[in-house]
Protein backbone atom coordinates (compact mmCIF):
# COMPACT_ATOMS: atom_id res chain seq x y z
CA UNK A 1 0.00 0.00 0.00
CA UNK A 2 2.64 2.51 1.02
CA UNK A 3 4.73 1.44 -1.95
CA UNK A 4 1.80 2.13 -4.23
CA UNK A 5 1.33 5.50 -2.71
CA UNK A 6 4.99 6.26 -3.24
CA UNK A 7 4.79 5.10 -6.86
CA UNK A 8 1.81 7.23 -7.67
CA UNK A 9 3.24 10.24 -5.88
CA UNK A 10 6.59 9.84 -7.64
CA UNK A 11 4.96 9.53 -11.03
CA UNK A 12 2.72 12.52 -10.52
CA UNK A 13 5.72 14.52 -9.37
CA UNK A 14 7.69 13.33 -12.38
CA UNK A 15 5.02 14.37 -14.82
CA UNK A 16 4.56 17.69 -13.09
CA UNK A 17 8.29 18.37 -13.09
CA UNK A 18 8.55 17.37 -16.71
CA UNK A 19 5.78 19.77 -17.57
CA UNK A 20 7.43 22.54 -15.59
CA UNK A 21 10.80 21.77 -17.11
CA UNK A 22 9.38 22.34 -20.54
CA UNK A 23 6.96 25.16 -20.00
CA UNK A 24 8.03 27.20 -16.97
CA UNK A 25 7.67 30.84 -17.88
CA UNK A 26 11.31 31.71 -17.48
CA UNK A 27 13.75 29.54 -19.32
CA UNK A 28 16.15 29.54 -16.39
CA UNK A 29 13.48 28.07 -14.17
CA UNK A 30 12.58 25.50 -16.79
CA UNK A 31 16.16 24.43 -17.13
CA UNK A 32 16.81 24.24 -13.42
CA UNK A 33 13.66 22.19 -12.99
CA UNK A 34 15.35 19.48 -14.97
CA UNK A 35 17.64 18.86 -12.02
CA UNK A 36 14.97 17.68 -9.55
CA UNK A 37 13.35 15.87 -12.43
CA UNK A 38 16.52 13.92 -13.03
CA UNK A 39 17.04 13.25 -9.33
CA UNK A 40 13.51 12.00 -8.93
CA UNK A 41 14.09 9.88 -11.98
CA UNK A 42 17.16 8.42 -10.29
CA UNK A 43 14.99 7.60 -7.32
CA UNK A 44 12.52 5.88 -9.59
CA UNK A 45 15.31 3.84 -11.13
CA UNK A 46 16.38 2.76 -7.71
CA UNK A 47 12.79 1.85 -6.93
CA UNK A 48 12.69 -0.22 -10.10
CA UNK A 49 15.77 -2.14 -8.94
CA UNK A 50 18.04 -0.50 -11.45
CA UNK A 51 20.84 0.95 -9.31
CA UNK A 52 23.28 1.18 -12.20
CA UNK A 53 20.92 3.43 -14.05
CA UNK A 54 20.16 5.39 -10.92
CA UNK A 55 23.80 6.31 -10.49
CA UNK A 56 24.20 7.17 -14.14
CA UNK A 57 21.01 9.19 -14.19
CA UNK A 58 21.99 11.17 -11.13
CA UNK A 59 25.42 11.93 -12.50
CA UNK A 60 24.68 12.31 -16.20
CA UNK A 61 20.95 12.81 -16.62
CA UNK A 62 20.41 15.15 -13.73
CA UNK A 63 23.86 16.55 -13.14
CA UNK A 64 25.63 16.98 -16.40
CA UNK A 65 22.61 17.56 -18.61
CA UNK A 66 21.34 20.24 -16.30
CA UNK A 67 24.77 21.80 -16.10
CA UNK A 68 24.89 21.91 -19.88
CA UNK A 69 21.46 23.44 -20.10
CA UNK A 70 22.15 26.03 -17.43
CA UNK A 71 25.36 27.00 -19.16
CA UNK A 72 23.45 27.34 -22.42
CA UNK A 73 20.61 29.30 -20.87
CA UNK A 74 23.18 31.63 -19.35
CA UNK A 75 24.95 32.08 -22.63
CA UNK A 76 21.77 32.77 -24.53
CA UNK A 77 20.32 35.03 -21.87
CA UNK A 78 23.56 36.94 -21.44
CA UNK A 79 23.60 37.68 -25.09
CA UNK A 80 20.06 38.89 -25.10
CA UNK A 81 20.71 41.09 -22.10
CA UNK A 82 23.63 42.57 -23.92
CA UNK A 83 21.42 42.99 -26.90
CA UNK A 84 18.66 44.61 -24.89
CA UNK A 85 21.07 47.18 -23.61
CA UNK A 86 22.11 47.97 -27.12
CA UNK A 87 18.77 47.83 -28.84
CA UNK A 88 15.60 47.20 -26.90
CA UNK A 89 13.40 46.99 -29.91
CA UNK A 90 15.33 44.21 -31.55
CA UNK A 91 15.42 42.10 -28.43
CA UNK A 92 11.76 42.33 -27.63
CA UNK A 93 10.85 40.74 -30.91
CA UNK A 94 12.38 37.49 -29.86
CA UNK A 95 11.96 37.26 -26.15
CA UNK A 96 12.81 34.10 -24.34
CA UNK A 97 9.30 33.98 -22.96
CA UNK A 98 7.57 33.14 -26.20
CA UNK A 99 7.15 29.69 -24.80
CA UNK A 100 4.53 28.12 -26.93
CA UNK A 101 4.02 28.13 -30.62
CA UNK A 102 0.78 29.21 -32.23
CA UNK A 103 -2.56 27.63 -31.47
CA UNK A 104 -2.16 25.39 -34.46
CA UNK A 105 1.04 23.90 -33.13
CA UNK A 106 -0.41 23.44 -29.69
CA UNK A 107 -3.47 21.76 -31.08
CA UNK A 108 -1.46 19.47 -33.30
CA UNK A 109 0.83 18.64 -30.43
CA UNK A 110 -2.02 17.90 -28.08
CA UNK A 111 -3.87 15.75 -30.57
CA UNK A 112 -0.73 13.91 -31.51
CA UNK A 113 0.17 13.33 -27.88
CA UNK A 114 -3.31 12.03 -27.10
CA UNK A 115 -3.40 9.67 -30.06
CA UNK A 116 0.08 8.35 -29.44
CA UNK A 117 -0.62 8.12 -25.73
CA UNK A 118 -3.78 6.12 -26.30
CA UNK A 119 -2.10 3.68 -28.63
CA UNK A 120 0.93 3.29 -26.42
CA UNK A 121 -1.11 2.82 -23.31
CA UNK A 122 -3.12 0.15 -25.05
CA UNK A 123 0.06 -1.55 -26.17
CA UNK A 124 1.59 -1.36 -22.71
CA UNK A 125 -1.58 -2.58 -21.08
CA UNK A 126 -1.60 -5.60 -23.33
CA UNK A 127 1.97 -6.62 -22.65
CA UNK A 128 2.31 -10.07 -21.17
CA UNK A 129 2.47 -10.05 -17.40
CA UNK A 130 5.60 -12.16 -17.35
CA UNK A 131 8.44 -11.87 -19.78
CA UNK A 132 11.79 -13.03 -18.55
CA UNK A 133 13.49 -11.59 -21.59
CA UNK A 134 17.10 -12.51 -21.82
CA UNK A 135 17.86 -12.76 -18.11
CA UNK A 136 17.97 -16.60 -18.16
CA UNK A 137 20.63 -16.51 -20.85
CA UNK A 138 22.52 -13.80 -19.02
CA UNK A 139 22.38 -15.81 -15.82
CA UNK A 140 23.55 -18.93 -17.55
CA UNK A 141 26.57 -17.29 -19.13
CA UNK A 142 27.44 -14.88 -16.35
CA UNK A 143 30.25 -17.02 -15.03
CA UNK A 144 31.96 -16.98 -18.43
CA UNK A 145 31.61 -13.26 -18.88
CA UNK A 146 34.34 -12.02 -16.60
CA UNK A 147 31.94 -9.81 -14.66
CA UNK A 148 29.79 -10.57 -11.68
CA UNK A 149 27.35 -7.74 -12.20
CA UNK A 150 24.93 -8.86 -14.91
CA UNK A 151 24.56 -5.32 -16.24
CA UNK A 152 28.31 -4.98 -16.62
CA UNK A 153 28.43 -8.39 -18.25
CA UNK A 154 25.84 -7.29 -20.78
CA UNK A 155 27.47 -3.92 -21.35
CA UNK A 156 31.01 -5.10 -21.78
CA UNK A 157 30.72 -8.63 -22.94
CA UNK A 158 27.43 -9.92 -24.27
CA UNK A 159 26.54 -6.66 -25.94
CA UNK A 160 29.95 -5.05 -25.82
CA UNK A 161 29.66 -4.05 -29.45
CA UNK A 162 26.87 -1.59 -28.58
CA UNK A 163 29.03 -0.08 -25.89
CA UNK A 164 31.97 0.21 -28.23
CA UNK A 165 29.84 2.15 -30.69
CA UNK A 166 28.42 4.20 -27.86
CA UNK A 167 31.85 5.50 -26.93
CA UNK A 168 32.15 6.50 -30.55
CA UNK A 169 28.89 8.43 -30.13
CA UNK A 170 30.50 10.37 -27.32
CA UNK A 171 33.53 11.13 -29.41
CA UNK A 172 31.34 12.30 -32.27
CA UNK A 173 29.42 14.64 -30.02
CA UNK A 174 32.68 16.04 -28.77
CA UNK A 175 34.00 16.71 -32.26
CA UNK A 176 30.70 18.30 -33.14
CA UNK A 177 30.69 20.58 -30.12
CA UNK A 178 34.33 21.54 -30.40
CA UNK A 179 34.10 22.55 -34.03
CA UNK A 180 31.37 25.02 -33.18
CA UNK A 181 33.65 27.12 -31.02
CA UNK A 182 35.15 30.14 -32.57
CA UNK A 183 38.67 31.14 -33.14
CA UNK A 184 38.37 34.44 -31.37
CA UNK A 185 36.72 35.24 -28.05
CA UNK A 186 33.18 36.42 -28.42
CA UNK A 187 32.33 40.02 -27.65
CA UNK A 188 30.88 39.19 -24.27
CA UNK A 189 32.88 36.77 -22.22
CA UNK A 190 31.87 35.44 -18.89
CA UNK A 191 33.59 37.37 -16.16
CA UNK A 192 30.79 37.49 -13.69
CA UNK A 193 31.95 34.76 -11.49
CA UNK A 194 34.88 35.85 -9.47
CA UNK A 195 37.23 33.40 -7.97
CA UNK A 196 35.51 32.13 -4.88
CA UNK A 197 37.58 31.08 -1.93
CA UNK A 198 34.91 28.78 -0.61
CA UNK A 199 34.51 27.04 -3.92
CA UNK A 200 38.23 26.84 -4.20
CA UNK A 201 38.61 25.02 -0.93
CA UNK A 202 35.69 22.76 -1.72
CA UNK A 203 37.32 21.85 -5.00
CA UNK A 204 40.55 21.09 -3.22
CA UNK A 205 38.79 18.70 -0.92
CA UNK A 206 36.26 17.19 -3.14
CA UNK A 207 38.12 16.54 -6.35
CA UNK A 208 40.49 14.00 -4.80
CA UNK A 209 37.52 12.46 -3.07
CA UNK A 210 35.69 12.16 -6.38
CA UNK A 211 38.69 10.56 -7.97
CA UNK A 212 38.79 7.98 -5.21
CA UNK A 213 35.06 7.34 -5.38
CA UNK A 214 35.08 6.93 -9.11
CA UNK A 215 38.00 4.56 -8.86
CA UNK A 216 35.95 2.63 -6.37
CA UNK A 217 32.91 2.64 -8.64
CA UNK A 218 35.00 1.43 -11.52
CA UNK A 219 36.62 -1.33 -9.54
CA UNK A 220 33.39 -2.41 -7.98
CA UNK A 221 31.49 -2.25 -11.24
CA UNK A 222 32.55 -5.75 -12.15
CA UNK A 223 30.46 -7.30 -9.45
CA UNK A 224 28.08 -4.66 -8.15
CA UNK A 225 26.30 -1.63 -9.52
CA UNK A 226 28.76 0.80 -11.01
CA UNK A 227 31.24 0.71 -13.82
CA UNK A 228 32.90 2.80 -16.42
CA UNK A 229 29.98 5.09 -17.22
CA UNK A 230 29.17 5.89 -13.66
CA UNK A 231 32.80 6.38 -12.75
CA UNK A 232 33.46 8.46 -15.83
CA UNK A 233 30.43 10.60 -15.22
CA UNK A 234 31.52 11.21 -11.66
CA UNK A 235 35.00 12.16 -12.75
CA UNK A 236 33.45 14.46 -15.29
CA UNK A 237 31.68 16.11 -12.38
CA UNK A 238 35.08 16.83 -10.92
CA UNK A 239 36.16 18.19 -14.27
CA UNK A 240 33.13 20.46 -14.41
CA UNK A 241 34.00 21.75 -10.96
CA UNK A 242 37.54 22.47 -12.07
CA UNK A 243 36.27 24.35 -15.08
CA UNK A 244 33.83 26.36 -13.01
CA UNK A 245 36.60 27.17 -10.59
CA UNK A 246 38.71 28.35 -13.53
CA UNK A 247 41.42 25.94 -12.70
CA UNK A 248 44.27 26.40 -15.13
CA UNK A 249 45.08 23.43 -17.22
CA UNK A 250 48.39 21.89 -16.24
CA UNK A 251 51.11 22.41 -18.79
CA UNK A 252 51.62 18.75 -19.57
CA UNK A 253 48.02 18.51 -20.66
CA UNK A 254 48.59 19.68 -24.20
CA UNK A 255 45.89 19.50 -26.82
CA UNK A 256 47.37 16.33 -28.20
CA UNK A 257 47.46 14.64 -24.81
CA UNK A 258 43.85 15.59 -24.30
CA UNK A 259 43.00 14.07 -27.67
CA UNK A 260 44.85 10.94 -26.68
CA UNK A 261 42.82 10.73 -23.47
CA UNK A 262 39.67 11.27 -25.46
CA UNK A 263 40.52 8.48 -27.85
CA UNK A 264 41.94 6.14 -25.21
CA UNK A 265 38.69 4.36 -24.45
CA UNK A 266 37.80 3.78 -28.04
CA UNK A 267 41.33 2.70 -28.88
CA UNK A 268 41.57 0.31 -25.97
CA UNK A 269 38.12 -1.14 -26.51
CA UNK A 270 38.50 -1.38 -30.26
CA UNK A 271 42.02 -2.69 -29.92
CA UNK A 272 40.94 -5.48 -27.62
CA UNK A 273 37.91 -6.20 -29.79
CA UNK A 274 40.05 -6.58 -32.88
CA UNK A 275 43.11 -8.18 -31.36
CA UNK A 276 41.26 -11.16 -29.96
CA UNK A 277 40.58 -11.99 -33.60
CA UNK A 278 44.21 -12.96 -34.20
CA UNK A 279 43.60 -16.20 -32.36
CA UNK A 280 40.69 -17.08 -34.60
CA UNK A 281 38.02 -15.71 -32.34
CA UNK A 282 35.19 -13.46 -33.35
CA UNK A 283 35.21 -9.75 -32.81
CA UNK A 284 35.09 -8.99 -29.08
CA UNK A 285 35.24 -12.65 -28.12
CA UNK A 286 37.43 -12.52 -25.03
CA UNK A 287 39.25 -15.64 -23.98
CA UNK A 288 37.36 -16.73 -20.86
CA UNK A 289 40.36 -16.71 -18.59
CA UNK A 290 41.35 -13.22 -19.71
CA UNK A 291 37.85 -11.80 -19.69
CA UNK A 292 38.08 -10.15 -16.29
CA UNK A 293 41.37 -8.30 -16.76
CA UNK A 294 40.44 -7.30 -20.29
CA UNK A 295 37.13 -5.90 -19.17
CA UNK A 296 38.84 -4.03 -16.38
CA UNK A 297 41.39 -2.57 -18.74
CA UNK A 298 38.69 -1.51 -21.16
CA UNK A 299 36.66 0.00 -18.37
CA UNK A 300 39.63 1.90 -17.01
CA UNK A 301 40.44 3.42 -20.36
CA UNK A 302 36.78 4.08 -21.05
CA UNK A 303 36.41 5.83 -17.70
CA UNK A 304 39.19 8.22 -18.53
CA UNK A 305 37.78 8.90 -21.98
CA UNK A 306 34.23 9.32 -20.78
CA UNK A 307 35.36 11.68 -18.06
CA UNK A 308 37.45 13.80 -20.38
CA UNK A 309 34.82 13.85 -23.11
CA UNK A 310 31.96 14.78 -20.80
CA UNK A 311 34.06 17.47 -19.20
CA UNK A 312 35.02 18.87 -22.55
CA UNK A 313 31.43 18.77 -23.73
CA UNK A 314 30.56 21.00 -20.82
CA UNK A 315 33.58 23.17 -21.40
CA UNK A 316 32.73 23.49 -25.05
CA UNK A 317 29.24 24.67 -24.32
CA UNK A 318 30.29 26.96 -21.51
CA UNK A 319 33.03 28.77 -23.35
CA UNK A 320 32.18 29.49 -26.92
CA UNK A 321 35.66 30.42 -27.98
CA UNK A 322 38.94 28.66 -28.26
CA UNK A 323 40.77 29.93 -25.26
CA UNK A 324 43.75 27.98 -24.00
CA UNK A 325 42.92 27.94 -20.32
CA UNK A 326 39.37 26.68 -20.35
CA UNK A 327 39.53 23.75 -22.66
CA UNK A 328 38.83 21.46 -19.78
CA UNK A 329 40.65 18.37 -18.85
CA UNK A 330 40.25 16.32 -15.76
CA UNK A 331 43.11 15.49 -13.50
Amino acid at each position, binding site marked *: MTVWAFDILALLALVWLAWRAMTARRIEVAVVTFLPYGLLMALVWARLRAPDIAIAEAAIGAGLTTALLIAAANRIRRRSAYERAADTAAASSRSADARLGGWGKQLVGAVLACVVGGLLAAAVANLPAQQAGLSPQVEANLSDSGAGNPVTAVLLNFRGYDTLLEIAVLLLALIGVMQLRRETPGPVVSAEQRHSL*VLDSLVHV*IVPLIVIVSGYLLWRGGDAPGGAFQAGALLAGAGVLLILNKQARPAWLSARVVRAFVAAGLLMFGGVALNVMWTGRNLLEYPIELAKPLILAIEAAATVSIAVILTMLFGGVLTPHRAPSLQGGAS
Partner: protein
Amino acid sequence: MWVDVLSGLALVTGLAFFVAGTVGLIRFPDIYTRLHALTKADTLGLGFVSLAIALQSPSIFVALKVMLVWAVALAAGATACNLIAQYADRSGLRPWERGEP
Protein backbone atom coordinates in the same frame (compact mmCIF):
# COMPACT_ATOMS: atom_id res chain seq x y z
CA MET B 1 15.43 -3.09 19.34
CA TRP B 2 17.00 -0.02 20.84
CA VAL B 3 18.56 0.67 17.53
CA ASP B 4 15.18 0.64 15.82
CA VAL B 5 13.75 3.10 18.29
CA LEU B 6 16.76 5.36 17.96
CA SER B 7 16.72 5.36 14.19
CA GLY B 8 12.98 5.94 14.15
CA LEU B 9 13.50 8.90 16.41
CA ALA B 10 16.26 10.23 14.20
CA LEU B 11 14.08 9.82 11.14
CA VAL B 12 11.21 11.75 12.67
CA THR B 13 13.53 14.50 13.82
CA GLY B 14 15.07 14.69 10.39
CA LEU B 15 11.65 14.96 8.82
CA ALA B 16 10.73 17.74 11.15
CA PHE B 17 13.77 19.70 10.07
CA PHE B 18 12.93 19.09 6.46
CA VAL B 19 9.41 20.38 6.97
CA ALA B 20 10.76 23.41 8.74
CA GLY B 21 13.25 24.04 5.96
CA THR B 22 10.61 23.73 3.30
CA VAL B 23 8.20 26.02 5.10
CA GLY B 24 11.02 28.48 5.43
CA LEU B 25 11.82 28.22 1.76
CA ILE B 26 8.25 29.07 0.89
CA ARG B 27 7.49 31.64 3.55
CA PHE B 28 10.68 33.62 3.98
CA PRO B 29 10.81 36.95 2.23
CA ASP B 30 14.18 37.13 0.45
CA ILE B 31 16.96 35.03 -0.93
CA TYR B 32 19.26 35.23 2.07
CA THR B 33 16.70 34.07 4.56
CA ARG B 34 15.55 31.33 2.24
CA LEU B 35 19.10 30.13 1.81
CA HIS B 36 19.38 30.13 5.53
CA ALA B 37 16.33 27.94 5.92
CA LEU B 38 17.31 25.63 3.17
CA THR B 39 20.92 25.00 3.93
CA LYS B 40 20.76 24.89 7.68
CA ALA B 41 17.50 23.11 8.32
CA ASP B 42 17.71 20.77 5.37
CA THR B 43 21.29 19.80 5.99
CA LEU B 44 20.48 19.02 9.52
CA GLY B 45 17.44 17.05 8.41
CA LEU B 46 19.57 15.10 6.01
CA GLY B 47 22.00 14.43 8.83
CA PHE B 48 19.30 12.89 10.98
CA VAL B 49 17.96 10.83 8.12
CA SER B 50 21.49 9.63 7.36
CA LEU B 51 21.92 8.74 10.97
CA ALA B 52 18.72 6.75 10.89
CA ILE B 53 19.90 4.86 7.84
CA ALA B 54 23.35 4.34 9.29
CA LEU B 55 21.85 2.79 12.37
CA GLN B 56 19.89 0.37 10.23
CA SER B 57 22.81 -0.58 8.00
CA PRO B 58 24.19 -4.11 8.07
CA SER B 59 27.83 -3.23 8.57
CA ILE B 60 29.92 -0.46 9.95
CA PHE B 61 31.36 0.25 6.52
CA VAL B 62 27.98 0.94 5.05
CA ALA B 63 27.21 3.16 7.99
CA LEU B 64 30.42 5.08 7.44
CA LYS B 65 29.62 5.44 3.77
CA VAL B 66 26.25 6.91 4.58
CA MET B 67 27.82 9.38 6.92
CA LEU B 68 30.37 10.23 4.26
CA VAL B 69 27.50 11.01 1.92
CA TRP B 70 26.15 13.38 4.51
CA ALA B 71 29.53 15.02 4.94
CA VAL B 72 29.84 15.59 1.20
CA ALA B 73 26.30 16.97 1.02
CA LEU B 74 27.17 19.26 3.90
CA ALA B 75 30.22 20.61 2.13
CA ALA B 76 28.41 20.97 -1.19
CA GLY B 77 25.41 22.66 0.42
CA ALA B 78 27.57 25.10 2.27
CA THR B 79 29.57 25.96 -0.81
CA ALA B 80 26.50 26.36 -2.96
CA CYS B 81 24.90 28.57 -0.34
CA ASN B 82 27.98 30.70 -0.20
CA LEU B 83 28.19 31.02 -3.97
CA ILE B 84 24.54 31.93 -4.34
CA ALA B 85 24.69 34.46 -1.56
CA GLN B 86 27.83 36.00 -3.00
CA TYR B 87 26.26 36.24 -6.42
CA ALA B 88 23.11 37.76 -5.01
CA ASP B 89 25.12 40.26 -3.06
CA ARG B 90 27.17 41.20 -6.09
CA SER B 91 24.04 41.55 -8.15
CA GLY B 92 22.93 44.22 -5.70
CA LEU B 93 20.21 42.37 -3.88
CA ARG B 94 19.77 43.92 -0.46
CA PRO B 95 18.75 41.82 2.53
CA TRP B 96 15.17 42.13 3.60
CA GLU B 97 14.41 44.37 6.52
CA ARG B 98 11.48 44.39 8.84
CA GLY B 99 8.56 46.31 7.47
CA GLU B 100 9.21 45.55 3.86
CA PRO B 101 6.65 43.43 2.02
